């Protein structure tokens, strides 16, 4: 990267990040890609620049909820979303500092520490990469793309003529109503659908997936691959669940693609 001047380290990244990124800009690369992934990323025409990370410790406080009503807890939804966004944004800033085209192998983790009541650390980590051809692969917003694709999946998707645009996510924190005594007694001994629960969980998942799709639309994506739906109670007890929907938004860049014909194998290794 031949910059006339070095970009200043954004104020919200720690001081050490600045020194570390400077070292990476001058040619050293670090990556948590396995050797296989490293070689496939090179094959796809990209070179790893460095290990990038972003983190944020967020206090997810209380939100009052009605015991008998199923509803989305919007404040908590916002909190979970903001926390992850902060972590991802800092990771993208580090990638930006390195002049990267994108970040592959992104891992989103949540750590709980005993000393922080209701506080959790949200971490985003991945390997920043840059195209060796010199073409820019940044997304519509001019930022390096992020994706949770492994090195192998990244190579495979590039072969199909699609390019990742960003890791998109949608989240919804939902409170499931407790059932009243009347309702519980009424259905003892029966195999019966519980319409309240069905409705609640259906709605929660739909909300999460819709929000994820909205993010993909902002990036003008053709579609989303590798979608995962995760459900976690974090520290709120069993009637409050966060539904998190994650995937990689991709864009089709060319129709002129020849997919290699795969050979079939049966492995004799157990």
């Amino acid at each position, binding site marked *: 990267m031949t910059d006339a001047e070095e970009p200043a380290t954004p104020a919200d990244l720690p001081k050490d990040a600045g020194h570390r990124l400077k070292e990476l800009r001058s040619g050293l690369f670090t990556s948590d890609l396995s050797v296989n992934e490293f*070689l*496939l990323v090179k094959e796809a025409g990209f070179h790893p620049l460095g290990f990038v990370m972003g983190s944020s410790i967020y206090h997810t406080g209380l939100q009052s909820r009605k015991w008998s009503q199923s509803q989305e807890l919007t404040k908590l939804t916002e909190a979970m979303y903001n926390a992850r966004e902060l972590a991802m944004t800092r990771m993208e800033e580090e990638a930006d500092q390195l002049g990267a085209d994108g970040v592959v192998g992104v891992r989103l983790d949540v750590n709980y520490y005993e000393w922080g009541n209701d506080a959790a650390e949200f971490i985003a980590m991945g390997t920043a990469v840059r195209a060796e051809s010199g073409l820019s692969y940044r997304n519509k917003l001019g930022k390096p793309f992020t994706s949770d694709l492994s090195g*192998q999946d990244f*190579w*495979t998707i590039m072969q199909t003529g699609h390019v990742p645009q960003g890791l998109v996510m949608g989240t919804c924190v939902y409170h499931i109503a407790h059932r009243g005594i009347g309702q519980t007694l009424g259905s003892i001994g029966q195999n019966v659908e519980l319409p309240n629960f069905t409705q609640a969980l259906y709605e929660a998942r739909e909300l999460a997936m819709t929000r994820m799709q909205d993010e993909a639309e902002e990036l003008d994506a053709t579609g989303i691959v590798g979608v995962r739906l995760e459900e976690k109670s974090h520290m709120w007890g069993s009637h409050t669940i966060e539904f998190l929907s994650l995937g990689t938004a991709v864009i089709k860049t060319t129709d002129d693609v020849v997919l290699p014909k*795969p050979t079939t*194998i049966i492995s*004799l*290794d*157990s």
Partner: protein
Amino acid sequence: MSATDILSEATTRLGEGTFTSGLTIPEFAACLHMGLRPVALVQGYCVMKWAWYASGSQYSSSSFWSGNRSNLSSYTCPHGFGYRSSYTSSGYGRSGYQGVEPDHRTWGSNVDQRWVNDAWMVGYNAALKRMIEEAQGAGAHGVIGVVDSSSHLIDGAIREFHMYGTAVVVEGEPPPPQIWTSYLAGERLAKLVEAGFFPVSVVAGLASIRIWSVCATEIHLEGGYDPYGTVQPTSEIQQISDAEMQARQVARDRIKSGLGADGLHGASFETDWEEVGKGDFVRSCTLRGTRVRSVSDAPALPPPVPTVVLR
């Protein structure tokens, strides 16, 4: 147990026509393809009493002890003062100064407790010998896929050695003079042969290193740096790192000395730490592997083709 050690029950079981085998399906298929026909599941077992610290045990007599251990390294107290048994007015230029306390560990050592290895090898070899005898009884040529374990039974003072494997016959060949044994089976054994090697025997060795801490080690392990200022908070706990290395090196060298021109393949270490008393530890390390002999100059495989598997 006597010369023909195996139980009569084992003889009965092995005399029946059907075979049992501990091989997995792919291993079984690979064996048959290689021309190795499984004939029986064979095992050897031995229970040893492990009381070398108890009085009355042959291992606690001092003559046995001194002949069967070797000092690997010694450490002296860096404080430089000697221990004096009584008050003296001329100690080191300061009148009345007695030097360090009586229980100050002015000397420490890492000792290879050879008798532990000897006792362990008795158990291991007994189990191996019995397994081989069962295989002989079944008319086999070798035993593959050996699984061996040594564990405490009932309480710490008793140890069991259990070894089992699948006895096989090499089709179209007469029985060899000695039954060969191997931890490998199936595809892995086929690849070993492809590499130009053949298993001779399973081998194991043990090193039990007794650590008698010198004062510096103890001070470090308790989190201190000493009041005399000679034990630094950032200097290495030399005695312990030496012991860690010695345990593995001695186990490896012990096996190596018995290999002749053969090699040890697929070695694996198992370690154990015991605190016998204050400042008194034992780091033991068991090494197991298959002794293999080079029987042909195998040509190198072509470089592997990198493959991406679509799941």
